[in-house]
Every structure is written in structure tokens, then in C-alpha cells.
């Protein structure tokens, strides 16, 4: 900056008129800073900004993308702050055990944004439409048949008892306007105006892909009541700048780094702490010696001081990983599992038992830049029990690709989705994706997992999940290191909150549309 002043000062010798004029023009901006004041606008800052055109099929396949769409399209049921399902487009619902069918009482007098009436046929149409055009967030495979009993009632027959249906389908599937989507045959590429006709509390005014900004306007005749905020704005800001933007009042809510929460608390802002929905997980190549041996995995678990990991790499903002995988704040959590307290001697014993007492064992830990500090700490810990770790840092996609092809010894990565229906446990043990442990050698565990999906009754399902967690902790197909906290700050205009168990099928974004409604 000194040089620009230097230049202006030396304007005399820069007689080249163009440059001098340009610099004076820019400096005139100092006094004029565009502050905008228009009627009640609620601004939320986001570090990525662009999550795609907020129509069901065109938003990006990430949590925030779904949430921006959920402001426009409603689902049959929706979670309130406590995570319990409340009626949205469906007023009431019941499950007929013997017929394996759900009956939904639809809410009368609901209109689409274009004035058309919302009827049962829209629901039936949406189920059939999703069969033809699969929507990644909702697996309608389990639905056998959908029948509109009358304008206000819909009956959905399932193939088999399927506990996650109520949350992962009824609570996640956006209901599409039949009169519009019936003539859209390539929904993934369709980004016209009418693709955004929904029944939700907000209508989209503008979406700018490059700037990563969204502007919503409230839907005055929303059936649950008129939203408190007239306009809702999403803007993109660099992570480090969001705290400043909030303090300057340019932004009403946004993610903040852990260190800043005290300053915001003093200034009267509300700090929202996310639940333990995301976990950093250490996976082993179960097809290779020595990782296929249970004792080796346990030795590793004993050899890593997970508490120190939380205190240092997460700077105390997080919770020690539960070897049973399900996070402590989840209703399905079962505490009595082996906790693998940090115990280097036990680890060395186990290793000696396996015959690795002598020379140091050289292993490679694959990870991405985000976990490089964790990797360094783990390397220090394992050195104490005679394992010398070589850390290989690559970009996320390469890490995921190598994990998928088993081209690794140990890999440190992380994923979310732990708040929703425990169906995620199945995905993460038996599933085919690179996040999953792909652990099939424990028959008992496999059966329990299949069983838990079919139990509708909560307490019974909890029973089964407790056993699952017990076996998981013993076998340790993967070791959850910690659950990090993430923080959002908001002023007190609208009381946003983290929905317990995450929105819809478990999205940890503190933007529940119900928070805009009294």
C-alpha cells in the first residue's frame, strides 16, 4: 500500500494522465461504502457459496444444497428443533403393521407458489416420478405402491417393514408439483423458472452461480404461518472473514472458528454448537496382514491417545471417539463398550503376542491435508509402541480413490451422517463406498445389522443396536478417533438452531425452515 501512496505523492512525475485518474477514482471510494439497508433482510454467510440451482434435481449432491432446496419444497413430514417428526404437507400419519403401509392425512387448502392447489395426486405423482428419475437423497426402492385414497389421504405400501422409511423418505422427499414436473423429462438439466414452484416458506428471487449468492422472498400464504423474515440472503465469504462480517452487522449468521465463540458470547450473540454428527475415522486394510488380525487393530486403538488428539488438533472442541461408532449424543448410543483407554503397555503386549515385539514395524498412513496435524500426533503416539508411521498426504479424491481400490494400509478420513437414522451404521460397515469399513467376516454382526433395519419399535431397535455397538467395539472394523464440534453464530433476529439428528436424513446444517415460522 505504501507504494500506491508513494505513487500518488509522486503524481508529478507520473504525468501519464491515465494512471493518475484511475488511482484518484479508486480513492474517491474510500468515503463511499455501499451499505445497504432495505427492509428486513436476513443474511447468512457460507464459505463455499454456490450449492447449485435450488431445484430438487439440480442442487449439488451435498447437505447445504439439499437445505437450500428445502426452503422452497416441502416434504410430507419435517423434524422440529428436538428432532421429532412433525407434520408438514401431511397433517397426520399412521402405520398399519399388518399391511406394512403408511397412511398420510394431507393438510387441506395448501397452494403451490403458482396458486395451484396441492392434492394427493401430487404425492402419488412424486413417488412415481422418482421411480423413473432416481433422486440421490431418497431411496424409494422399498415402496411397493402408492394410492391416493381421496384428495386428502394417501396410502403408501412398503415391500417390508422398513424403519428408516418415515425419516429417510417421508421426512426427506420433496413433493413435486404434478402439473409442472409431468412434462419435465430431463430434470437434472432443467433450470427454468417453473422448476422452482414449491409449497415451501420461501420463493427464490435470484441465484448467482459465480458469486455464490442466493436471494429468497417469503411465501406470504405459507400454511404454517407467514415467515418472520421478508427476504433471506446467502452470500459467500472467506472463512476467516465471517466473524468480522457478523461483528460489523453485514451478516446475521454464519460458521465461526472455535476460538471466536467467547468473543461472540460476550457481545450477546447466540453460539450454536453442532451435535456430534461428523467423525474422523481411521480405517484399516482388512484384506492385508497384520490389519486383518483383530488384536493388531486393538493394539493400535490402545496405542493412540484419542483424548490428546481432541485437546491438541481440535483444540479441545470435540469429543473423544466412541469405539462403538455411534456418537454419544445419539438416542441409539450404548455406553457399555470397550473404551480402549490410552494404554501403550497393553498395546505393546498385544503386538508382542502377535510376534511383532522385535524390530520396529514400518507402516504407511494415507490421509488428506485436513488431517495432517492428527497424522503427526498419531505418528508420535505409535512410535512409542514400536510402529514407525510414514505419512502420505494427497488430495481428497485421490485418497478416496485409493481407499476404494484397497490401495492403502491405514487411511485417516472422515464423514458425516451420524445424526440420522441408524441405517448409516449398515452403510458404514457393509456398504460398498470408500467411507465404509467393508467388514463382512463377522456373521453375527451382519445378521444384527440386517435385523435392525426392520424393527419399527424404537426400544426393541435400540436393544439390537446396543449389541451391534458391542461387537463393533470388539472387532473394530474402523476406529472413530473423535467427533469435532462446529460452531455457528447468529444474532437474535431469527433463532436458528441445530436440529437434533440433522435435517431430513441427517444433514448437520443449522437452517431448519421451521425456525422462520413463529
Amino acid at each position: 500500500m505504501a507504494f500506491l501512496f508513494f505513487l500518488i505523492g509522486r503524481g508529478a512525475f507520473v504525468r501519464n494522465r491515465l494512471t493518475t485518474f484511475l488511482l484518484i477514482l479508486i480513492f474517491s471510494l474510500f468515503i463511499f461504502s455501499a451499505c445497504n439497508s432495505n427492509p428486513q433482510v436476513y443474511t447468512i454467510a457460507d464459505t463455499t457459496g454456490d450449492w447449485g440451482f435450488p431445484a430438487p434435481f439440480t442442487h449439488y449432491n451435498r447437505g447445504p444444497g439439499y437445505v437450500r432446496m428445502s426452503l422452497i419444497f416441502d416434504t410430507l413430514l419435517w423434524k422440529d428443533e428436538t428432532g421429532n417428526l412433525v407434520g408438514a404437507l401431511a397433517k397426520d400419519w399412521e402405520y398399519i403393521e399388518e399391511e406394512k403401509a403408511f397412511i398420510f392425512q394431507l393438510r387441506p387448502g395448501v397452494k403451490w407458489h403458482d396458486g395451484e392447489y396441492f392434492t394427493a395426486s401430487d404425492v402419488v405423482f412424486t413417488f412415481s416420478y422418482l421411480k423413473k428419475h432416481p433422486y440421490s437423497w431418497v431411496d424409494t426402492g422399498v415402496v411397493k405402491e402408492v394410492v391416493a385414497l381421496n384428495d386428502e389421504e394417501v396410502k403408501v405400501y412398503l415391500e417390508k417393514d422398513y424403519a428408516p422409511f418415515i425419516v429417510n423418505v417421508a421426512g426427506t422427499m420433496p413433493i413435486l408439483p404434478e402439473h409442472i414436473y409431468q412434462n419435465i423429462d430431463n430434470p437434472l438439466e432443467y433450470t427454468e423458472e417453473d422448476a422452482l414452484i414449491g409449497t415451501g416458506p420461501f420463493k427464490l428471487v435470484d441465484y448467482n452461480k459465480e458469486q455464490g449468492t442466493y436471494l429468497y422472498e417469503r411465501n406470504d400464504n405459507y400454511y404454517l404461518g407467514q415467515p418472520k423474515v421478508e427476504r433471506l440472503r446467502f452470500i459467500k465469504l472467506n472463512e476467516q472473514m465471517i466473524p468480522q462480517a457478523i461483528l460489523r452487522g453485514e451478516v446475521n449468521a454464519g460458521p465461526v472458528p472455535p476460538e471466536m465463540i467467547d468473543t461472540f458470547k460476550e457481545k450477546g450473540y447466540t453460539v450454536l454448537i453442532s451435535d456430534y454428527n461428523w467423525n474422523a475415522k481411521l480405517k484399516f486394510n482388512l484384506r492385508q496382514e497384520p490389519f486383518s488380525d483383530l488384536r493388531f487393530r486393538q493394539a493400535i486403538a490402545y496405542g493412540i491417545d484419542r483424548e490428546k488428539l481432541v485437546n491438541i488438533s481440535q483444540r479441545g472442541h470435540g469429543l473423544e471417539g466412541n469405539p462403538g461408532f455411534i456418537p454419544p449424543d445419539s438416542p441409539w448410543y450404548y455406553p457399555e463398550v470397550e473404551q480402549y483407554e490410552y494404554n501403550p503397555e497393553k498395546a505393546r503386549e498385544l503386538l508382542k503376542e502377535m510376534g511383532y515385539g522385535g524390530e520396529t514395524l514400518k507402516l504407511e498412513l494415507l490421509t488428506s491435508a485436513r488431517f495432517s496435524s492428527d497424522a503427526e500426533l498419531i505418528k508420535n503416539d505409535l512410535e512409542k509402541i514400536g510402529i514407525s508411521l510414514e505419512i502420505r498426504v494427497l488430495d481428497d479424491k485421490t485418497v478416496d480413490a485409493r481407499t476404494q481400490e484397497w490401495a492403502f494400509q491405514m487411511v485417516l478420513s472422515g464423514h458425516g451422517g451420524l445424526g440420522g437414522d441408524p441405517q448409516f451404521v449398515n452403510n458404514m460397515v457393509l456398504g460398498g463406498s470408500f467411507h465404509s469399513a467393508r467388514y463382512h467376516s463377522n456373521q453375527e454382526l451382519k445378521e444384527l445389522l440386517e435385523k435392525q433395519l426392520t424393527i419399527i419399535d424404537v426400544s426393541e431397535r435400540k436393544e439390537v443396536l446396543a449389541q451391534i455397538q458391542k461387537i463393533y467395539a470388539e472387532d473394530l472394523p474402523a476406529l472413530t478417533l473423535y467427533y469435532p464440534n462446529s460452531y455457528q453464530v447468529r444474532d437474535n433476529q431469527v433463532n436458528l438452531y441445530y436440529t437434533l439428528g440433522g435435517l431430513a436424513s441427517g444433514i448437520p446444517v443449522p437452517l431448519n425452515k421451521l425456525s422462520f415460522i413463529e
Partner: protein
Amino acid sequence: MGRKRIIDYLLALVIVISLNFFLPRLLPGDPLLSIYGEDALITMTPEAKVELTRRMGLDKPLWEQFFNYLSGIVKGDLGYSYYFQGPVLDLLLGALPWTLLLTGLALIISTLIGFILGVESGWRKGRLADQGLLTGFMFLNGFPDLVIGLFLLLLFGVVLGLFPLGGAMTPYSQLTGVSLLLDVLHHLFLPLSALVLTEIASCYLLTRTTVVTLLEEPFILTARAKGIKPKNIRYRHVGRNSLLPIVTRTGVRLGRLFTGALFIETIFAYPGMGLLIYRAILGRDFPLIQGVFFLVAVVILLINFFVELIYPRIDPRVKNNAY
């Protein structure tokens, strides 16, 4: 210009296009995974996978994909981005103006100021002003654009609050006309100064060295004998003669026009191409990568082509192959 040269350029373009196609595919990690992989909540149902692979043309053998890609380019359709789910051309055209505004302007300003300061400093070789400027620039040269960008943002954005904290313009402020222009400039100022400060040192140095060697030339003595005002000598005689190396350097630097400002764009959340390219590569979004590199290749080859044309204009002694 020689016919040989045009063949060279076409050959280079073909090679670049094919590299654009094959290089990204060498990167480990498959696009489907990157689109679906990240969020554990999404279960990739088998039918969804089949439908997607068909739509992205990944099911066809590699050479057929290459053929479609080539015919696409000829027809001017750069394909469809998997991740952003939009035609690549629109994505590029969306980000291009902002990039040209930021990096283009930065390149012009830094070259212009670097050139002027280089001439002034070279002319006063060895005097305090020269050594001061040189030391100053050397000091400045030591800071990477990451640090300068952040330093400016912290100082002027956060502490003094004179400038916005990011973005290319105040979103949805319904500004039009001049006020919109001012708003855009207001947002542009910090990232632009950051880029200028990082680019300026090298242009200044190159000019200064060229000017210093030129001062020894007898035609400078002739000019002084002709009673030409010192300022005119500096620019009409010394300046014009030192244009050649500057143009070469700017030609080379144009190569980094698109990807050079990645760090500045991240810090200032500025919607330029750098970020687009970065996310495309990390997300293994092949059509977008191909589209971006094709645009970059064409623009750079054109600029090289143009730079070569103006060489004889700048220095008549240059036969048309030396540059």
C-alpha cells in the same frame, strides 16, 4: 508470418487439446465417486449409477469419448459439467469477466507502473531514489501473494473497515449504473492491489536492468545532444527500446492469467476462474477441466500469435522468428 509458424501453432493446439483430455483422466479418483462420494447420506443406488454413467458418457470406450470431445469442440459445445450440472460454456463465461477484470487489470497496471518505475529508477542508477526503490521492491518481492492478500484484507478490510471483506460486488443491493460500477470497483480494489503488489516487482526489475544497459548506448548521447527534454529521452528513446523484453515477459506471464490468482480469489472469495479450475480438478469434473484448459489454451496461443505480430513493430531489427 511464415506458414511454418501457423502449422506449428495448430500442431500445438491439437497436442494441448488431447493433453487436456488425457491428463485429467490420469488423475486417480473417478468422477462418479467425487460427485456422490462425499456425503455418506447419499446411497448411490445401482440404477442411479447406471443412469449417471450413461449421461456422462463414461460407459463408452475411451477413444469414443475422445472423439465426442473433439467433435464437441469443433461444434463449439464444451460439454456438460457433472458437478455444477450446467453447460461448461456458461460456467466459463460466468467466471471469465471477473477473472479478466481482476488478473487482466492487475497485469496491465503492474506492467505499466513497473515499467514507469523501472525507467525512472534505471535513469537514476545508483542514486538514493534508485537504491531505495530497489530495496523496497525486493522487500515486497519476498512476500507471497497469500500473505500480501491477507495483510491487505486484515488492515484495510477488518481493522480500518474501509473495504468490503470479500466477494465481487454487494449482493442484491439493487445498484445500477455508476453506483454499481463504483461498488464493483470498491470490491475489486483490495484483491487488485494485492495482485499488483505481487506482480509489480518482477516487471520493475526487468525494466530497470534493460534501461541501465541501454543508457550506455550512443544514441542516448545523440538524443541528449539534440536537446531533447530528459523525460522524452527516458520514454521515447530508452523506454521504447526496453519494450521488447517487457513484452516477452508479459507474454510468458499471460500463461498464468487464469490460474495465477487462485490464492487471491480464495482469500477475497472472488468469483474468478482460478477457483473454478481448482474445484474442477479436485472434483475430477472432466468436461469442466477440458473446457477451461481449452479456453486457456486458445487465449494464450492467440496472445502469443499476437505478440509475435507486434514484435517487428516494437523492434524492427527483430526478424520474425526471434522473440
